[in-house]
């Protein structure tokens, strides 16, 4: 029995398949490539594999992570090459590492995610003025958004400011996806909470920021990419890529 984590990208047309679709795709790809996964026991056995953090439909990602257990031992190179020959265009592995066996999944460890959003900012503000707006936005102690509660459907107010670690604004590269020609195409880079404990949907933040600038945020016109997922070691403030994490080494102090 061996445990691995793979790093992969999801882009192009493949950003239009959902989290569940991706799960099914990997399940079949493992099967096809002869990499046998460990199955859970019980009435409805399912393979032991989990994504570190689900990615919303429509988002590209540079670095996604899947954590899984295999029946036999493989070299990491072997896993990368086998899966890469069998995956459709738009999903591909960039790396693989072995993990020590542990009950703790990477999904339980991940805390932060970095995203880029490129879109055309409405209104008449220049890039310099938008940067000022952003500084003022981040200087707020509280950023209140309305959120629908999943169970009751009630609208509740939530302060999202504590979940924002960093946010920067640049003029978009005209060649980048979503950049295009014309005025006020901006790229926002967000570093926010992402994980099972606290999670901030980037679109909620983008909407709040755009509204603070007096313009609406139109999600269909934004190109969103996740760049990386992070965790912190207890007692340290340094963000580390979740790919560098050995969950077995992380104490239950989390």
């Amino acid at each position, binding site marked *: 029995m061996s445990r691995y984590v793979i790093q992969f990208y999801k882009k192009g047309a493949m950003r239009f398949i959902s989290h569940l679709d991706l799960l*099914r795709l990997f399940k079949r*790809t493992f099967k096809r490539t002869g990499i046998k996964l460990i199955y859970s026991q019980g009435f409805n056995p399912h393979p032991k594999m989990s994504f570190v953090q689900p990615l919303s439909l429509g988002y590209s990602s540079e670095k996604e992570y899947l954590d899984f257990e295999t029946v036999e031992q493989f070299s990491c190179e072997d896993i990368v090459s086998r899966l890469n020959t069998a995956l459709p265009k738009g999903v591909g592995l960039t790396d693989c590492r072995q993990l020590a066996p542990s009950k703790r999944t990477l999904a339980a460890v991940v805390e932060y995610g970095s995203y880029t959003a490129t879109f055309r900012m409405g209104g008449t503000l220049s890039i310099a003025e938008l940067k000022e707006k952003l500084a003022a936005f981040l200087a707020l102690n509280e950023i209140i958004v309305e959120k629908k509660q999943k169970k009751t459907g009630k609208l509740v107010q939530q302060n999202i400011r504590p979940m924002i670690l960093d946010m920067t604004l640049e003029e978009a590269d005209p060649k980048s996806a979503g950049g295009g020609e014309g005025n006020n195409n901006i790229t926002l880079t967000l570093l926010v909470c992402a994980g099972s404990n606290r999670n901030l949907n980037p679109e909620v933040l983008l909407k709040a920021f755009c509204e603070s600038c007096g313009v609406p945020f139109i999600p269909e016109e934004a190109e969103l990419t996740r760049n990386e997922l992070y965790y912190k070691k207890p007692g340290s403030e340094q963000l580390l890529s979740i790919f560098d994490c050995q969950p077995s080494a992380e104490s239950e102090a989390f």
Partner: protein
Amino acid sequence: MTWNEQLDKLLKKVEKPARYIGGELYSADKDPREVDTRFAFAFPDTYEIGMSYLGLQIIYHVLNKMERVYCERVFAPAQDMEALLREEQLPLFTLETGTPLSEMDIVGFTLQYELSYTNILNILDLAGIPLKSEDRGEEHPFIAAGGPCAFNPEPLAPVLDFIMLGDGEDALREVCEAHRSWKASGAPKREFLEEICRLPGIYVPSFYEPVYGENGVFSHMKKLYDGAPDKVEKRMVENLDEADFPEHTIVPLIDVVHDRAVVEIFRGCTRGCRFCQAGMIYRPVRERSAERIKALAKSQIEATGYDEMSILSLSTSDYSKIEPLVTDLMSTCRENNVALSLPSLRLDSFSFNVLQEIQGYKKSGLTFAPEAGTQRLRDVINKNITEKDIYGAMEQAAELGWNGVKLYFMIGLPTETYEDLDGIAEVAQNIMDVACQANGGRRGRFHVTVSVSNFVPKAHTPFQWCAQDSEESFREKHIYLKDKLRKIKGVTFNYHETHTSHLEAVFARGDRRVCDTLIKAWELGCRFDGWSEHFRYDTWLEAFRQTGISDDFYAFQELSTDAPLPWDHIDCGVSKAFLRSEWEKALKEVCTQDCRRGCAGCGINSRTTCEREGTL
């Protein structure tokens, strides 16, 4: 904005955008500049339904195996996508390369059910292709169709340039070969049609003109081109082992209706149920060898990574060596962690053993299709199943721990009386009693679902001459049954909507004139008529009214067996004389034997050998 950027913008706004992206494992990736024939396989319903259809996988495989042909796919866009395409004035496109459909050489629709016809028109319109063949020019693609409903193609005849009858594997290859040489010749489109109408199985509707007599009754077909055949014979693949079958099937990225590996085990059916069009038009039975089925199953599972597999035919248990085949498939599936699902299995003791093994604790999905409530009516329809068969199987099922069964019946069958409806309730009650007894006198959780559909007379069946029940009569029967079945504890009653059945009858027996109604209904906004949430009956009635076509004329008329029929020039291999004699026998409540017990004389063996004739 480039086309890809425009497309991306749409995809971000629609539900299930992956319906439109292609890029699945084993979808074909060719350079369109390197081919002579660009063929779009068009399925007139959503991606999830179209991708569950094995015929698509077969045709796609056969055509893409040809070096100079590129077969791509297109499905009916859902209403949100349609609205966006219209708003942005973007053309409907193929999944493989995002090419506007109007740039294809041939667009081939599959006609699986009548209620998908408005979607055909919608697909053409979204592609900017004129609906009627007479309005299309040299710059437009050829619009073609095939599939079971093509056996009465007349309602769509004004739309289609050519129609393929019967098995498509060989006919399509020949059509594409012919297209290649025609294209090289630079001749006008008509010459291509003149060429292919000589190929067996190809019907070019514009070479024929229906003539109607007084009272608007169909009289005969007038040929407009001498080179066209008087009768168009369907195509048949004689040997399934030699026929191409895909091992590398396209594996959808999103959840589709049937998301599994599937191997077709045979075509055709020997039973001869008189209402069943498939049982007539797919004759004779042609089996794929067990060795080939097993090899295909294994390679498909390995190539796709599916965790479920199924076998396909009109009646699984009728495969000649079904027991060893299923036993072997079970072991292949077990070794590969694949769940085997066996549709349309007859419930005998072997089946129960198999189901016990493959379903384990998840005992689900027992179904029975007596089709009619009394032995008399079952004799009329030639459904050779007895009450002893049903109760014996149910007793065993209950003993083995199944806690329910779904029963399929049809109402509105010819000669039906309320006694036959009482019979439906009796069957349900008796099954309940049998199950109670097997369960020590208690009902427990045993449950019977009675599902009733409305009989629709279909072309090329012994019941093609029958009138359909009126909607009022259907409704009365539904209420009657609902009332009867409500009194039996543990029975659920489902029935089909009558409006859709009525419309099906109009198109199943329609002639060329109903095409105008179809176009009108589409103009008035009808789409996805097979979906109850989209079906708009009032709009359909308005379309009939505006075009001056009587729906009742097509649905409610009992036709004379001597009268010419609008589909008489389509030859499915079963003779009209046989259908007529079957109709007469039906009225006398006389059964016809399964042709495995001896030839029933349908006429198909004048064209080919029936390998299963007299083998029981």
